[in-house]
């Protein structure tokens, strides 16, 4: 049980290399399930490894509870980590794998046995304790790796892409188990993944990273509803958000967004004030595929703006249909009701839900209308 504080942490691997982690500043609350997410090479794993004590910090401080751990060895930080490759000791039995860390800490044999059995019970691997890792399936290995972390009873759990070696079905199942584990252990979890779905489903709070910098911190809901920049907007949500280059035209009630491709979308009243300084200027309009509907099967109570588009490809997903649309040569995606009659080559009338538009400044790529205090600390969007 502990809170973790990153204080303006920077990591540079070589003199002339770019910063792997750039001014990472964040407080992780006790019992939080924090997920670091971003594309590969964004510095999320390095951030985790700095906390684990596997890399040295170039600048800044890391605290676990109130203890400065910059120069504390990994073994003395009271943390446990689950690796992507599981990193099981191949020559040791499952029991020995789980007991190794406890043995080195000179914990009495009886207690070791009790703790290992307990963890094995929780994870349902009690009957595998005598086996060697090579005799286990991928899912079983993953559980042993989890068990090895659990028996240590650490104050912080670290996970480095622990699910990426599992098949899709097992991944969903294990995801739920890790969430349950977090609830029952009541310990701080820091979890790294490149998979935004994993981040959205598991986290109590998400940190989106890109090129070593924090892009946005927030609950899954916040990140989805109010992405603060184009990177977060494009990264969170699946399928990804569509972007259009548009020009702000008109005035007052007639304020509208004229796309380069020709169509125009009216600006909802709440957003007009934000666009006051953007008149006759270019902005980027983002809209998620799930906010574009087939006009014939529009959900009730939405304010829609209609755009004529040509159907390029359709993908039947069962509950809905992904429709790849073309307007003026610009491709975008809509997730529409499965009753749609759209067929490739045909034209359909797409209904844009204008209450769900996201507007960005094309130069800074920041969301338009971001509160001033947040914008001041941007691009590393926030420090709680």
């Amino acid at each position, binding site marked *: 049980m502990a809170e973790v504080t990153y204080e303006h942490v920077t990591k540079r691997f070589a003199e002339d290399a770019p910063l792997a982690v750039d001014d990472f500043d964040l407080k992780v609350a006790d019992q939080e399930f924090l997920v670091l997410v971003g594309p590969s090479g964004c510095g999320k794993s390095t951030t985790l490894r700095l906390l684990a004590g596997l890399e040295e910090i170039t600048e800044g401080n890391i605290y676990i509870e109130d203890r400065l751990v910059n120069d504390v060895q*990994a073994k003395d930080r009271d943390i446990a980590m689950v690796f992507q490759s599981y990193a099981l000791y191949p020559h040791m039995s499952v029991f020995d794998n789980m007991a190794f860390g406890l043995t080195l800490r000179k914990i009495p044999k009886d207690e070791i046995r009790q703790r290992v059995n307990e963890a094995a019970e929780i994870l349902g691997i009690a009957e595998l304790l005598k086996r060697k890792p090579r005799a286990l399936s991928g899912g079983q290995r993953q559980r042993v790796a989890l068990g090895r972390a659990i028996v240590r009873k650490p104050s912080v759990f670290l996970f480095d892409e622990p699910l990426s070696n599992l098949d899709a079905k097992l991944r969903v199942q294990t995801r739920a188990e890790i969430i349950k584990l977090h609830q029952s252990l009541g310990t701080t979890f820091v979890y790294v993944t490149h998979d935004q779905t994993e981040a959205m489903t598991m986290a109590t709070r998400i940190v989106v990273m890109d090129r070593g910098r924090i892009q946005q911190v927030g609950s899954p809901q916040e990140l989805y509803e109010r992405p603060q920049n184009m990177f977060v907007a494009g990264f969170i949500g699946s399928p990804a958000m569509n972007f259009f280059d548009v020009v702000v035209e008109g005035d007052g009630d007639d304020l509208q967004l004229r796309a380069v491709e020709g169509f125009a979308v009216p600006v909802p009243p709440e957003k007009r004030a934000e666009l006051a300084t953007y008149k006759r200027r270019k902005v980027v309009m983002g809209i998620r595929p799930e906010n574009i509907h087939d006009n014939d099967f529009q959900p009730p109570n939405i304010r829609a703006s209609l755009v004529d588009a040509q159907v390029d490809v359709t993908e039947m997903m069962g509950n809905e249909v992904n429709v790849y649309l073309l307007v003026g040569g610009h491709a975008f995606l809509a997730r529409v009701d499965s009753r749609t009659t759209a067929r490739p080559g045909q034209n359909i009338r797409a209904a844009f839900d204008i209450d769900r538009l996201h507007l960005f400044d094309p130069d800074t790529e920041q969301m338009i209308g971001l509160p001033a205090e947040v914008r001041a600390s941007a691009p590393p969007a926030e420090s709680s």
Partner: protein
Amino acid sequence: MSTQRLSALPPGRFRDTLRRLFGRAPLHLVIIAMCIVWSVPTVALLVSSFRDPRAIASSGWWNALFHPAQWTLTNYDSVLSARGMSDAFVNSLIITIPSTLFVIIVAAFAAYAFAWMKFPFRNPLFLIFVALLVVPLQMTLIPILRLYSEITIEGSVPVIGGNFFGVGSYSGLWIAHTAYGLPFAIFLLRNFFGALPRELFESAHLDGASDLTIFFRIVLPLSGPAIAALAIFQFLWVWQDLLVALVLLGDPKLAPMTLQITNLVNSFGSNYQVLTAAAFLSMIVPLLIFFALQRYFVQGILAGSVKG
């Protein structure tokens, strides 16, 4: 088969059929021929070593195959009893086994540091070590002989004999062989250690393991193949060494088999019956070691230098 029908078949199919029928005959022929050629000298040695001395001198070894009456064990008998060869055999073991173990231990420590520790000049230093692989042993012998003669500690070591250190001592020879074996050993082991997954080390660090714990409880148990390969190489080289023993061991009582056999060759000229038996005895141990560790040997090489 007419040309008409031949051309009716697609050319590829026809070639495949032909290859299946006749194509493999040359393959077997070449392999078997090569195996026979390669085995003839060894078989010759083996057969001769069981032949009567007069028969060896007067007729080729192949005659023995048709005259079983010529077969005898007297060669082995005379070598093992009369020529001091059994002492030499023991001496060879006394020289080889510690030399092999020392190299493995010392090189494994260095290889671990090179593979998993960060320190200044790590790569240049490693490259210098690799470069030392090509220093000819002959070049080092004069300076080492001088050095040894200055620091020789005379006396007689209990049980195995020889001086305590320096010229005419086993300990001097062990250390020399260890040093000569190091460049290759470090090269092989460092490559193998370096190929172990990084996460294992990190996981062990987090589990609270020190470098020594990781070395003895993770790295060494996982490096069986590389260590077995190294053991075979080092054993072969030390067992086969003539030069270092010749220069650094003054005392004939300490001489290993290679030295003893060479003396036999030089003093008896064509006295084959002794030579054959002695030579065959000298290769038994390396062969046993090779066949015992062969499986590991191939794997070790593969893991060390033939990645991908």
